[in-house]
């Protein structure tokens, strides 16, 4: 709770200080903060319009990260196998996927898949697919590193007790690995929130798209994009705080065990 108040006050501070700084940096520019000012009726309507993109930004990021974590794990496990073919699959997937720029992936999924597979996806589905695929290669590497960091004795003890591979992973290895990879996983989620702005290109009405639309009607790019910057900053400050809280809670569990 305290942390939430902390990030909220950080946002308020940013909201008030940043415009003040901007107003000082150029004497020729006449500012038009009224477009996003909560003090005017126009500003309030515009703010409401800009914030209406929040649902899609959060929705697409959460959906994509959920899929990419599962996909990443599914790709990481063969990478840890003693079977050379399984390891080759892992390497090929990771290298191929992470060499495709996310914007290119998005365009290809949205415009290419209908032609290749006769599969036409909606804007949201195409966005989720592109983001999840791109991110999964990185998730796979994070999982692989996390699982490899677990002591070999944990595998041997599980094996010697006659646990199956899946039970060993589910009850012994992954719970321990997850604690260690929580910081990089949180990082990926922050990255995902920012990357979701690319989906505006194919027309999903998330935060960036809304800002673009407003710029076209109001002709106030600097003010509106500054507001957009602040929207992302607030969002990510809150997410970072939540990840920290989660980390601390898990670390507390670890300490109790120590």
């Amino acid at each position, binding site marked *: 709770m305290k942390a939430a108040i902390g990030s909220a006050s950080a946002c308020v501070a940013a909201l008030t200080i940043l415009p003040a700084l901007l107003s000082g940096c150029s004497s020729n520019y006449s500012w038009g903060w009224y477009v996003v000012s909560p003090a005017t009726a126009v500003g309030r309507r515009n703010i409401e319009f800009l914030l209406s993109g929040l649902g899609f930004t959060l929705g697409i990021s959460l959906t994509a990260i959920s899929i990419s974590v599962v996909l990443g794990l599914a790709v990481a496990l063969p990478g840890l196998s003693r079977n050379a073919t399984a390891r080759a699959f892992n390497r090929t997937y990771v290298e191929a996927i992470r060499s495709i720029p996310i914007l290119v992936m998005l365009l290809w999924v949205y415009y290419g898949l209908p032609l290749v597979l006769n599969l036409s996806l909606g804007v949201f589905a195409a966005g989720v697919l592109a983001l999840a695929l791109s991110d999964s290669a990185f998730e796979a590497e994070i999982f692989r590193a996390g699982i490899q960091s677990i*002591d070999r*004795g*944990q595998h*041997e*003890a599980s*094996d*010697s*007790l*006659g*646990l*199956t591979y899946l*039970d060993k992973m589910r*009850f*012994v290895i992954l*719970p*321990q690995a997850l*604690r260690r990879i929580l910081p990089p996983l949180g990082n990926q989620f922050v990255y995902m929130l920012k990357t979701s702005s690319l989906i505006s290109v194919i027309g999903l009405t998330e935060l960036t798209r809304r800002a673009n639309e407003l710029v076209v009607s109001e002709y106030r790019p600097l003010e509106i994009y500054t507001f957009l910057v602040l929207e992302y900053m607030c969002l990510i400050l809150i997410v970072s705080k939540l990840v920290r809280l989660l980390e601390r809670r898990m670390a507390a*569990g*670890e300490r*109790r*065990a*120590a």
Partner: protein
Amino acid sequence: MNQRRQDAPIIAMHGVKKWFGEFQALKGIDLTIGLGERIVVCGPSGSGKSTLIRCVNRLEEHDEGTIVVDGIELNDDVANITQIRREVGMVFQQFNLFPHLSVLRNLTLAPMRARGLSRKEAEELAMEYLNRVHIPEQAQKYPRQLSGGQQQRVAIARSLCMKPKIMLFDEPTSALDPEMIKEVLDVMIELAEDGMTMVVVTHEMGFARRVANRIVFMDHGEVVEAAPPREFFGAPRSDRTKLFLSQILSH
């Protein structure tokens, strides 16, 4: 399949060879162990004694020869391996308890997942074995809150919860402070008195003398000598055994 005869060996190793890259860790081991027998394996470090017992539950894969455990041959058949592992308990030098689980959960996990016991049954079983290793009061704690000796006793109880036919011990007291060695050895002696088949890699010669039916001395990947304790300590046949005994018993 024929029913295994009562006097047939529970572990039979023939011509077992194992390489780690260029290094040959086992150079043709022949060893048969009967039900209820208690074997102590000793020898200098690097002699292959840990590798030998780790081959019994396939933590290491042997390259040549045959290993038959409880009538099942160890090969690439995963079902066979899992089956054998459920019959063979193992205690490690470093305990290898699951640090994120309470002592009780450490004990109930395998019986519930691999033997299909309900939580209630598994917890009753766990408490029974925690009593046998004399630490029922630690059930709700986490491994790192326990002393080394207590952790090792939890590890023994964890293996026993699977009701194995054979228990393997890989230097179970080597990582312990001296004052904790006895509490672990006492538990192992009680286990031996109950008739458990045990294969123990250890340097504790007092334990060997008291508990073992046979002592197997290994050096450079070979079984140099295998004899009952009285014979082994009283009249060792090979020079290598004599040298080893003089080093280990000198103080």
